[in-house]
């Protein structure tokens, strides 16, 4: 059961984005009492002031990191479905390390991201050594670690003095600089920009990236050409975990300054959506991440204080996943038999 690399046609990416936008519009217009005003809030709210804009960019930065994590795996022809757990794990690990006190921010972040890299790397290693599909193992490992982290945050790691199911706050000295107070935009968003630049250079200007893309394109060809297919299975999965981990760490040192139960939810799945909308290209990740952050923030502004937002997020993801690799005109194009669709 080889996993075929999900490919997005440019038309499909645009269609998926439009479909996502239309879904949000439809839902808020159906549920709103004053559609015109709600629509305005949705479209303009996220950009209207420093606070909203800062939060949007902060979210976009984290989505860009998870999106980049998904892209590097996709480009190597592997599929990291464990993003959710990796983000969460890194967040909790960096919180614990930083709570120990006297630890510099960088070390805490690195510890968290490394833990996530390990979690992702294990799936790559299992794929290489045993042939166990990394798509399934990465999901299962992530799903297994999530309740354990929940337990730690509700139990042993919980700040007993507060009513929130969360750890104590990390020391003020370890928090990132805020760029647009009082919004949550921190220097962590700049990391995302750096990461994307590095990712582009690595993929397109280095031998590692070149071979990685060839392995992603055709594993058999790569093996005949003498490339180490195992290396390009394990390392991209680990890097993917690492980038998801960075997002989780930023969530702690840049946004919440602590770990809260289930607080990283959605970053992993949305990262996949971002990567697909960006058609697996590093230079398109940031716009795709901003678009997604806008959808989330707009929906939240429009249906303020309403639980519907969370479900709306899931439905938008679903719409994107449905359309983003689809070829809606497949029937009308010349019937080229797609052998790949079969695999």
């Amino acid at each position: 059961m080889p996993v075929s690399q999900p490919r997005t046609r440019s038309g499909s990416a645009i269609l998926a984005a439009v479909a996502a936008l239309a879904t949000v519009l439809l839902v808020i217009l159906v549920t709103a009492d004053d559609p015109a005003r709600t629509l305005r809030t949705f479209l303009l709210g996220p950009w209207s002031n420093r606070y909203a804009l800062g939060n949007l960019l902060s979210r976009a930065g984290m989505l860009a990191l998870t999106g980049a994590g998904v892209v590097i795996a996709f480009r190597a022809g592997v599929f990291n479905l464990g993003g959710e757990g990796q983000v969460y794990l890194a967040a909790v690990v960096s919180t614990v390390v930083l709570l120990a006190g006297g630890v510099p921010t960088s070390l805490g972040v690195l510890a968290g991201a490394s833990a996530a890299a390990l979690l992702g790397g294990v799936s790559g290693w299992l794929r290489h050594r045993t042939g166990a599909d990394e798509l399934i193992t990465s999901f299962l490992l992530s799903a297994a670690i999530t309740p354990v982290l929940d337990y730690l945050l509700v139990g042993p790691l919980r700040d007993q003095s507060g009513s929130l199911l969360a750890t104590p706050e990390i020391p003020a000295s370890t928090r990132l600089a805020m760029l647009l107070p009082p919004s949550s935009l921190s220097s962590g968003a700049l990391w995302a920009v750096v990461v994307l630049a590095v990712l582009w250079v690595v993929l397109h200007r280095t031998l590692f990236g070149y071979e990685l893309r060839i392995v992603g394109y055709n594993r058999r060809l790569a093996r005949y050409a003498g490339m180490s297919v195992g290396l390009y299975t394990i390392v991209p999965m680990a890097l993917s975990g690492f980038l998801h981990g960075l997002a989780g760490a930023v969530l702690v040192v840049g946004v919440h300054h602590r770990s809260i139960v289930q607080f990283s939810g959605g970053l992993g799945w949305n990262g996949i959506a971002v990567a697909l909308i960006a058609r697996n290209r590093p230079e398109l990740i940031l716009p795709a991440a901003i678009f997604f952050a806008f959808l989330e923030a707009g929906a939240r502004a429009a249906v303020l204080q309403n639980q519907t937002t969370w479900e709306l997020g899931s439905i938008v993801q679903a719409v994107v996943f449905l359309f983003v690799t689809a070829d809606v005109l497949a029937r009308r194009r010349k019937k080229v038999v797609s052998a790949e669709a079969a695999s």
Partner: protein
Amino acid sequence: MMPQILQSWALLLIVALGGLLSERGGILNIGLEGMITMGAFVAVAAAQAGAVVPVAALLGAIAAMLLALVFAQFSLRWQANPFIVGLAINVLAAGTVPLLSEIVFGTRGSVRIADGGIPVWTVVATAATVLVLVHAVVYATPLGLRLRIAGEEPEWLRAQGIGVTRYRLAGLVGSGLLAGLSGALLALRIGVYLPNISAGRGWIALVIVYLGYRTPAGLAVAALFFGIMEAVAVRAQSVLGVPPTVLLALPYVLTVVAFVSYAALRNRER
């Protein structure tokens, strides 16, 4: 403990047989998890509205089949990547079911059925019937033969002028019906719909498909392993005092261990 094992075995076997149908047709159905949830919710909603058990179960199965049709429309007709479409089905169910629950019952929490659960033997008998049926269809009908060819030698089918798509569609529809049925029986058995009721069963089912060497009889054996594990896990909670939250991790851990061992074994054989 025996009824618990049988119940877990039967419910897992039904979904896994569904997963088998689409897998043998050449499409791995990642969306089983969402289909189980949908089946469970619709069955409870139907039972609440006064439907008798068989009707409620049937409606649950049909609701999940509708998700399978969405899957088919995108992955077969519009040639979308089946893995991404499967994810879409899961998040779609995760998003729409709480919304529906809010609209229908005014709550996102658990929904109880008035007259309690159905007996275990109903669930077990259903699973046994489905097992026999799937075995018969896959091995003793032209439909089953072509389904298997659609999975293994699609080019051959095309060369014969027989479309592959309709057999894959049949496989997906079957997987939707069975996943929905399993979810429905689960909810009707425990007499309540709970958020996250599928709890990884869709993923475990996929692993059972491989552990069972992709044959119905093999699946029945593999499902027994997980049935026992699930029952032991339920016991461990009360006997060992393991925190229930951590216990939620256990099915995933066991599944990954089983899956990797199986893959390693297959790898060595090759």
